[in-house]
């Protein structure tokens, strides 16, 4: 028999077993109810596709080509009516509290009908992740309860995340690059808050959001040491919306320019800064900044993978439909072996992409941002407690500094770096896998469909335009490959240096 010490030693060799097979450990710990909830979510998404996404997908895309200034306000109102903007907000913050991995399945479903429409829903949760990852429970409660109120009133309240700058895209995704980069969004500390100057670009849904999570820097020469997170509300003095981009695809979802000119952000809207961090951690600022970035991208990149899987599925469905209805040499196209082989590969790509986001979600659930909410006893506790309990018992505690400090310690001080790395690495793996396979499927659909694939009215060409953005946002796939190396490979090869050619 092999001793436990031997097993432990051998499994820690490259690739460390606990990193490489993270889902195996989470499988037995997963609350069974999650599966039931995921099935419910998929069913809701399919109903939405039938009633809203499919009928609107090409119509909105064409409308935005005809009039690039078009804003999909009605679509946002429709998604709000369906309850999608609170579905994955934890119940303690006034949301419906669906389990977070279920959002990936939802994303796959809706993206299979329209990536642009899915982004109109999904990018709000990029903002939500930005809020929750900060551990600032007081501000999270304030902002997220407005989202819930927006659902009740019929006036959507969306959150966007503003990180990218005109001169800094990849730089702002990685702390190692941040200090060498050229960020320019400056936050000057003044009495009672910060004064912000700068511009953010490519901010999805910026024009249609009520709140924006804004990253700015108090010292532009050392941004990694001076990152601050601020909540800014549309309409605040000094905050204006610039142009929105004329993109190739995902046209239902505007990408906005946000301009800050002496915009005063009061202390009560500071999500995190030096003082906030010091209250719960003595770790270096850059470590905390990287942890924060890792939490956000570990949650959002598997979502982008799911978007890619959705597009891959959409392409498969278009190709299947075409091949079933088209004749070649007197036989249905679908009867030809070369077509069957391509369709089979497309199906395999969808399945492989899905496995990738499932594994990344398992990592988050076992060792990352979701670990408290998906921990079985807590999961059922939050699931079964009545709404009144959250309102009367939990909600008041969220305003207390001690709660923020406790959440900060759990998230930043007590979290193990190897866990954070594992989640971030898997998120990057999922992102590049889902989006690359998605592009492969969209190209394959066009190849099978020939001339029909070029037509806007048949939808395949839109998929090819839409999917390409997924290889770029949430960190280019090139950066994500480097992050995968950093998180899942480099720890076993400590002499390897990163970002230092």
């Amino acid at each position: 028999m092999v001793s436990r010490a031997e097993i432990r030693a051998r499994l820690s060799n490259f690739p460390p077993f606990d990193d490489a097979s993270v889902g195996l450990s989470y499988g037995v710990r997963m609350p069974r109810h999650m599966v039931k909830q995921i099935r419910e979510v998929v069913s809701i998404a399919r109903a939405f596709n039938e009633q809203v996404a499919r009928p609107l997908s090409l119509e909105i895309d064409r409308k935005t080509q005809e009039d690039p200034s078009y804003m999909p306000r009605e679509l946002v109102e429709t998604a709000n009516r369906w309850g999608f903007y609170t579905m994955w907000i934890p119940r303690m913050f006034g949301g419906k509290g669906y389990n977070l991995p279920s959002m990936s399945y939802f994303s796959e479903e809706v993206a299979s009908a329209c990536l642009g429409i899915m982004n109109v829903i999904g990018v709000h949760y990029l903002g939500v992740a930005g809020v929750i990852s900060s551990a600032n429970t007081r501000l999270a409660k304030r902002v997220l309860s407005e989202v819930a109120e927006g659902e009740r009133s019929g006036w959507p309240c969306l959150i966007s995340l503003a990180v990218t700058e005109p001169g800094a895209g990849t730089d702002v995704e990685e702390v190692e690059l941040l200090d060498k980069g050229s960020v320019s969004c400056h936050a000057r500390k003044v009495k009672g808050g910060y004064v912000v100057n700068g511009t953010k670009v490519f901010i999805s849904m910026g024009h249609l959001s009520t709140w924006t999570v804004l990253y700015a820097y108090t010292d532009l020469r050392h941004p990694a040491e001076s990152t601050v997170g601020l909540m800014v509300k549309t309409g605040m003095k000094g905050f204006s919306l610039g142009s929105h981009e004329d993109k190739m695809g995902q046209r239902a979802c505007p990408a906005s320019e946000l301009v800050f000119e002496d915009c005063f952000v009061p202390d009560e809207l500071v999500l995190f800064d030096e003082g906030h961090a010091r209250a719960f951690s003595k770790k270096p600022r850059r470590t905390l900044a990287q942890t924060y970035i890792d939490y956000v991208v570990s949650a959002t990149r598997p979502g982008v993978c799911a978007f890619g899987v959705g597009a891959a599925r959409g392409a498969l469905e278009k190709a299947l439909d075409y091949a079933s209805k088209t004749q070649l040499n007197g036989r249905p196209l679908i009867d030809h072996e070369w077509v069957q082989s391509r369709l089979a590969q497309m199906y395999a790509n969808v399945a492989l992409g899905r496995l990738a986001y499932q594994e990344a979600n398992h990592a988050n659930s076992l060792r990352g941002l979701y670990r408290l909410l998906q921990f079985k006893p807590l999961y059922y506790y939050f699931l079964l407690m009545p709404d009144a309990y959250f309102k009367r018992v939990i909600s008041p505690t969220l305003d207390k500094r001690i709660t923020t400090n406790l959440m900060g310690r759990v998230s930043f001080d007590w979290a193990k770096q190897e866990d954070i790395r594992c989640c971030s690495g898997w998120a990057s793996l999922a992102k590049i896998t889902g989006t690359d396979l998605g592009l492969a499927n969209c190209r394959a659909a066009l190849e099978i469909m020939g001339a029909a694939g070029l037509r806007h009215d048949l939808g395949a060409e839109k998929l090819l335009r839409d999917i390409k953005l997924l290889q770029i946002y949430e960190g280019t796939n090139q950066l994500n490959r480097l992050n995968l190396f950093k998180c899942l490979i480099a720890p076993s090869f400590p002499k390897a240096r990163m970002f230092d050619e």
Partner: protein
Amino acid sequence: MGTVFKKELTPMKELARAFSAKELAPNIREHDRHPFAPLFMDTLEKAYEAGFFGVVIPEELGGAGGDLETLCVLLEEISSVDASLGAAVFTNACAQLTAGACAGVKAAGALMSGAASVREAILAFPCYLHPVIEAETLPRAELSPGGQEVLSGTVPLLSLATVATRAVVPARGAHGDDVSFFLVDLDRDEVTKSGPVLTLGFHACPAADVTLDRVPALRLCSPDKGSEAFGSVYAALLVASAAISAGIMRGSYECALAYAVQRRQGGREIARWSEVTMMLADMLIAVRSSGLALAQASRLALDGDASSMEYAASAALTVHSLACGVVSDGIQVLGGYGYMKDYGQEKRYRDAHQASAVFGSHPLKKLSLVGPAVKTASLGQGGMP
């Protein structure tokens, strides 16, 4: 430097380059807005005056008297700036070369003579279908009671149908099922045209779905010669379409390179990030090897020899595949900016995929390429014909 064509073609290359810089480059985005903005008729008119629509027509018939290589030089050069005009020139050349293969060069040249405008001079052609492989989808030709041949059926995505007054259209013959080619007057009452169909790329080379309802048509070849006639020019047309792709990918590479040496991330030009350098290297290799292949292919494609045509068509299909990869990397190097309309990379991505669908789906073109070889090899082994 683009494709290594023969030096005698330098004047054509320079003419195309100067035209592209003056007439295309300043208005690419506006031209690309069609069908939601007017078509660039002024530019088409100037291209016609420059002789771009008569490159393959003999000089004595009013053309430029160029060969396939001349056409490829022109297509590559203008497509490196705006492939929509390349597609328009290509569509017309498809019609002219096919008509020439059917009825002789003089007859093809006559189709252009006497035209008062570009609309009257150019010909529409269904260049997204393979008239032989997809013969079962073609319109039917039959004899009218008056003894004239009439066509009935639908021609999807007939390129330039909203611009040209005439089209060269394939149809299954009344005298059997072989493919024949016909000249159709698109202004006749029996012809119904959709508006310009919104497609992935080539927005300024509009295609329309055209329905023919017993429309009188002029036969261009004898009933059993259509497939053979098209087969004699197919490799050449495929090579010409690949010249568009070669131009697109060159434009994409040059744009990516220019961006990569001025954009800084992590404190240095992104061109100095070895992963980005590697992408640029892959793009460069694809551009240069395509250039070599295309130059050789354009000399072989009209040899009339089956083996030469096989080489040429193979090279063309390879160039199309490479282009689809290059344009994707071309966006990637520019990141978010590449996805926006500002730099033209997204248009190149769309146009390259559109170009690869010329004459139908890529796999079908591959199958049709290897088909004769399989048949010959099978016969050599005593197999069934």
